[in-house]
């Protein structure tokens, strides 16, 4: 059962909403919990065990951490300092257990086959008659997301940003909330758990805003992403048959497909949560208006970026060893280069993890390192760029400069997504090379583009859909909320727009004969 399936949209979700409305407020969170586990079971069957295990383990670890703090707080007099030190040591050990347990489980389930295959390939080259058995335990849907939520909860309790929750049900719901569990956004306990537990009444504004957001998500997913999928599949699967403009078109279309698919599914997620009055963080903020690679990652998959920043980049950058490296480097290299030396290793760790988080493959690792290099170089280059702009009296906030930077970022993002989507790193390089080696404008005239699985109608529908998305993104970038503006229109106009939006999805959605249903892309990561 996917978020775009009729079963979810016309049966599961309405039934949960109806029961939620009928139940007294204090019991509603139990309904959301039961619905979330039913939803997860329908998708992952017996692998639901891992979700149970995660919930039970973070519940125990949280209480254990809290108990340490309580014991240290009870100590008085001369024993207080010793108790505080012992508590700090013990808490560190507990945090390590928790992180190793959850990240270890993620690595074991998701990456064991990848590491096993590569190790076996290495062993074949050595004169050793040893091969490791293939290990495949099954990967529950959403494990990449709920494992990170679990680690963030443990870490926040450790740092005393939140108190440990003694209610196992509430924690289990926080990890498994059905709109979020498949592909995020990655929620923080402090933002989301209480709103899940409150059982707020269904309010007109929440429900209508939620439905609007869901229709917008369906529009992006069904009209744009699933339509472009046909062309993308054809080019990336048969990449040896194509070159030049066609491969470039494939990479551009995949970038747009991924944006429409992922942000569309996030709209469905946030819209559903909004109906229940639950706070879920935004995951996109007009990413294609970014001017640098680091800004792009502050606007694209925001909750993953902030997770890595808060739970990996900052803690690693502030360890004693890394600080010492920074101090020495600043003395020898100056403030800016020294600072770059301090963040080098933590930043590398973040981008290796970011790449591998997306999947077990060399192309994902390459994708992570690609952004590591771009962000590091961008940071090193910044003072020089500012100096040159000042010397030449260039206005870096002017329209032309911003437009050039946006185009530069589009090229960077499309290149990254080409490697990200390619069937392996070798295929990625082959496709990248073929863009330059097989360039021919003839494909624009000889009808070759019409042999990629999409006809003129499909191209037009996707293009018009993208114009809508661009227009909405421009309005949002300028601080105009389309939903708020629409809500203030008179009732007949407002409802005409809503119905027109639903009809657009129904009429122009890429489903039925000639189209294949496409699972949310990020559910596979």
């Amino acid at each position, binding site marked *: 059962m996917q978020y775009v399936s009729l079963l979810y949209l016309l049966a599961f979700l309405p039934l949960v909403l109806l029961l939620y409305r009928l139940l007294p407020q204090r019991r509603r969170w139990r309904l959301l919990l039961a619905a979330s586990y039913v939803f997860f079971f329908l998708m992952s069957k017996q692998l639901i065990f891992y979700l149970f295990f995660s919930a039970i383990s973070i519940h125990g670890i949280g209480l254990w951490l809290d108990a340490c703090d309580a014991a240290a707080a009870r100590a008085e007099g001369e024993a207080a300092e010793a108790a505080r030190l012992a508590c700090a040591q013990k808490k560190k050990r507990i945090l390590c257990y928790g992180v190793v347990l959850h990240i270890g489980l993620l690595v074991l389930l998701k990456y064991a086959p990848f590491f096993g295959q590569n190790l076996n390939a290495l062993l074949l080259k050595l004169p050793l008659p040893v091969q490791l058995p293939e290990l495949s335990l099954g990967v529950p849907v959403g494990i990449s997301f709920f494992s990170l939520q679990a680690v963030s909860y443990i870490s926040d309790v450790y*740092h*005393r*940003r939140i108190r440990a929750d003694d209610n196992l049900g509430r924690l289990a719901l926080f990890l498994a909330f059905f709109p979020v569990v498949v592909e995020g956004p990655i929620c923080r306990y402090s933002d989301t758990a209480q709103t899940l537990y409150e059982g707020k009444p269904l309010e007109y504004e929440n429900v209508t805003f939620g439905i609007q957001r869901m229709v917008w998500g369906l529009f992006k997913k069904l009209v744009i992403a699933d339509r472009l999928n046909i062309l993308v599949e054809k080019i990336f699967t048969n990449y040896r048959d194509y070159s030049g403009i066609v491969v470039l078109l494939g990479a551009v279309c995949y970038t747009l497909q991924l944006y429409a698919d992922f942000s569309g599914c996030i709209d469905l997620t946030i819209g559903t949560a909004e109906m229940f009055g639950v706070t879920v963080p935004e995951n996109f903020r007009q990413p294609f208006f970014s001017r640098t690679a*680091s800004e792009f990652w*502050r606007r694209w998959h925001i909750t993953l970026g902030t997770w890595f*920043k*808060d739970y990996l*980049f*900052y*803690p690693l*950058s*502030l360890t004693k060893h890394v*600080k010492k490296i*920074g*101090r020495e480097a*600043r003395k020898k290299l100056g*403030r800016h280069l020294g*600072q770059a030396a*301090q*963040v080098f290793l933590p930043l590398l760790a973040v981008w290796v993890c970011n790449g591998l988080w997306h999947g077990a493959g060399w192309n994902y690792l390459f994708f992570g390192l690609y952004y590591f290099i771009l962000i590091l170089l961008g*940071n090193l280059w910044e003072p020089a760029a500012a100096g040159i702009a000042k010397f030449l009296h260039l206005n870096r906030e002017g329209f032309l400069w911003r437009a050039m930077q946006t185009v530069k970022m589009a090229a960077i993002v499309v290149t990254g997504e080409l490697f990200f989507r390619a069937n392996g790193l070798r295929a990625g390089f082959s496709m990248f090379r073929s863009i330059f080696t097989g360039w021919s404008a003839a494909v624009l005239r000889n009808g070759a583009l019409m042999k990629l699985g999409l006809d003129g109608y499909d191209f037009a529908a996707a293009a018009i859909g993208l114009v809508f998305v661009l227009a909405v993104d421009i309005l949002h970038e300028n601080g105009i909320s389309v939903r708020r503006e629409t809500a203030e229109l008179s009732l007949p106009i407002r409802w005409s727009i809503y119905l027109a939006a639903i009809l657009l999805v129904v009429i122009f959605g890429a489903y039925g004969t000639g189209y294949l249903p496409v699972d949310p892309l990020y559910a596979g990561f």
Partner: protein
Amino acid sequence: MEQLMKILEDINPDNDYATETALIDGGLLDSFAILELVSALEDAYGVEITATELVPKNFNSAQAMWDMIQRLQKN
């Protein structure tokens, strides 16, 4: 406080530190700038700033940073 203002100006002179109260929430200081700031504050005030302190409420304004420094100096 004067020294703190100078440190902040050195790191990014484009912000109005006297009045700004959303340096982090508003995205005016990125993670690289925050770490540069942490190093400068540790050197200037002899405090140790750990990952626990790296939350927006400690860095959203010059006053919040000053309060954090004074709290860490007392500990």
